[in-house]
C-alpha cells in the first residue's frame, strides 16, 4: 500500500494498493496553489481510503519534470511524510504515470512555462505493464515539439493538466513487484537556476 504525491503539473494525491488498486485519489488542476492544497488532499485521501499511516509501505514522489516551485512542494511533502511515517520514499518519473497503460507509441508533454514543454516518448508498455520510455524526459520549445522525435505523427500525444498520483502509485507498485529500479531521488528540473553572473558593480555616475 502506497501514498503517492505528484505536483509536477497540478496537485494529485492517491492511496493505491497492488491488489486492490486505487483506494483514494484527490486532485487539483490549479498550477499555482500546490502549497495551499497539498495538506487537504493528503488528509482527504487518508480519510477516503480509511488507511492508517502505519499500514503504508512507502511514499511515492513524482520527481517531475515540472515547473520547479510546484514540483518541490510535492517532493518535500513526500519526503517529510516518509520521515514521519518511517517509510521509504519511492521516486518515480512523473511522465511515466501519464504513459501508464499506454498500448502504443505515446508522447507525454507537460507545461514547462516560458513557451517550453517537458516531454518524454514511449514505445508502449512491456509485458509487466510498465511504460517503455524511449526518449526523455527532455525540454523543448512548445512550437518545436513535433521536430523533437522522428516520426512524431506516429505517436499519440498526451498533454495532461494534472499527473495522476494514482497512476504514479501503480507504476511504483509494478516497479517494485518486478524488481525494477526506481527513479533517482532527485528532482528532474532539466533547467539550471535562472541566474547570470554579473560582470561587477555598474557605475552610478556617467
Amino acid at each position: 500500500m502506497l501514498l503517492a504525491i505528484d505536483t509536477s503539473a497540478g496537485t494529485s494525491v492517491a492511496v493505491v494498493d497492488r491488489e486492490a488498486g486505487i483506494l483514494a485519489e484527490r486532485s487539483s488542476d490549479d498550477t499555482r496553489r500546490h502549497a495551499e492544497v497539498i495538506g487537504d488532499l493528503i488528509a482527504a485521501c487518508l480519510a477516503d481510503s480509511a488507511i492508517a499511516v502505519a499500514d503504508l509501505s512507502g511514499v511515492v514522489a513524482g520527481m517531475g519534470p515540472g515547473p520547479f516551485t510546484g514540483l518541490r512542494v510535492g517532493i518535500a511533502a513526500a519526503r517529510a511524510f516518509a520521515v514521519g511515517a518511517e517509510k521509504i520514499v519511492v521516486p518515480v518519473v512523473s511522465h511515466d504515470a501519464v504513459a501508464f497503460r499506454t498500448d502504443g507509441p505515446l508522447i507525454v508533454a507537460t507545461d514547462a512555462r516560458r513557451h517550453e514543454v517537458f516531454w518524454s516518448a514511449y514505445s508502449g508498455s512491456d509485458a509487466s505493464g510498465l511504460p517503455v520510455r524511449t526518449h526523455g524526459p527532455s525540454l523543448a520549445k512548445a512550437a518545436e515539439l513535433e521536430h523533437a522525435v522522428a516520426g512524431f505523427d506516429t505517436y499519440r500525444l498526451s498533454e495532461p493538466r494534472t499527473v495522476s498520483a494514482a497512476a504514479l502509485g501503480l507504476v511504483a507498485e509494478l516497479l517494485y513487484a518486478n524488481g525494477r529500479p526506481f527513479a533517482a531521488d532527485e528532482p528532474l528540473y532539466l533547467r539550471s537556476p535562472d541566474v547570470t553572473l554579473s560582470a561587477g558593480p555598474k557605475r552610478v555616475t556617467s
Partner: protein
Amino acid sequence: MSAPLVLGIETSCDETGIGIVRGTELLANVIASSMDEHARYGGVVPEVAARAHLEALVPTLREALATAGVGLADLDAVAVTSGPGLAGALMVGVGAAKALALSLGKPLYAVNHLVGHVGVDLLARPEQLEGQPLEYPTVALLVSGGHTSLLLVRDLVSDVELLGETIDDAAGEAFDKVARLLGLPYPGGPEIDRAAVGGDPTAIRFPRGLSLPKDLEKHRYDFSFSGLKTSVARWVERERDEGREVPIADVAASFREAVVDVLLTKAVAACTDLGVPRLLLGGGVVANSRVRELAAARCAAAGIRLRIPPLALCTDNGAMIAALGAQLIMAGRAPSELGFGADSTLPVTVIQA
C-alpha cells in the same frame, strides 16, 4: 498542561532551519545554509535557495531530532514559517510541514517569521543572568539581508504592530552591495565589519535615509538604504576617477556608521515616542559588532533596556518558529487550517496564519 514539545521548520530565505523546543527550553537548533552557493552571485538567488532547502530538509530534520534526543512521536505539534520571505523557498517548508504533521497526526501551526524573531528571545538560556521573560510592550528592531523592520510588540501571540520597515533594500542587502563595490566578498556584513577596523567612521558623511524633517512626516520609522548605497558608489567612483586610492577602511567604517546610526536613531526614537523603555534586536545583521556596540550605548543613554538574543538565535532558524508555536499552544490557540499557503508578504499583524 506541561510545556509543549514543538518542532519548527524555517525556510524563508537561505537557511534551512529545524528547531525543537519544549515550551521555552531550547532542545535543538540545526541550520543548513546555502550561503556559499550564493557567494558567486553576490546575493541570495531564490531558485538556488529553494533547491538547497529541498536537499537539506530531511538531513536537517534528522539531525535536529538526534540533537534533541526526542522521537517524532513525542512531539506535541509542528510549526512552520508561512511568511514573509521568498515564496519558492517558503513553499518547501510549508509542503514538508503539512505532510509531516499529517503523517504524525499532530497539530500544525503556521507562523509569522518576523514575530518568530521576537519570540526566540523567550528561549531560556543558562548564560542569561537576568533570565526574565520578555516584558511587554517592547520595540523590536529586526535587521537582516531579507528584512529591516521596526515592530511594537504588545503581546507576542496577539498584538504586534508594524511601526516601520525598509521602503527599498534591506540593511543586509546594502552591506552586500557596498562590499561588492569595495571588491569584498559575499556576505558583505562581516566583510565590511572587518574592513572597517581602524577606519574613521566620521571620515565621510554618507546620508541617513528618510531622516530629513519632510521625510520623517511620512516615514518616521521607515528605512531606506538604496540612496546610501548609490552615494557610496558615487564617492568611490570619484576617488578612482581622480586617481586616488580608495581608503577602504574609512569608506567601510563611514558606510557602516550611516546604516547603524539610522537604524538605532529610529529604534530609539520609537521607544522614546511611545514610552517603551525596552528594545529587542533580531536578524542576522545583529552579528555586526558596531550594531551591538551602538545599540548598547544609545540604549544606556536613553534609559532603554536592551535585549539581544544569542547570535545563533538571531539569524534565521527553526527554533524561533518552534518557540512561537509553543507560545501559541500555551495561549490556547487552535492549530492552523491545513489550507494556508506560503505568503511572501505576510503582515506582522498576522502572527498565526
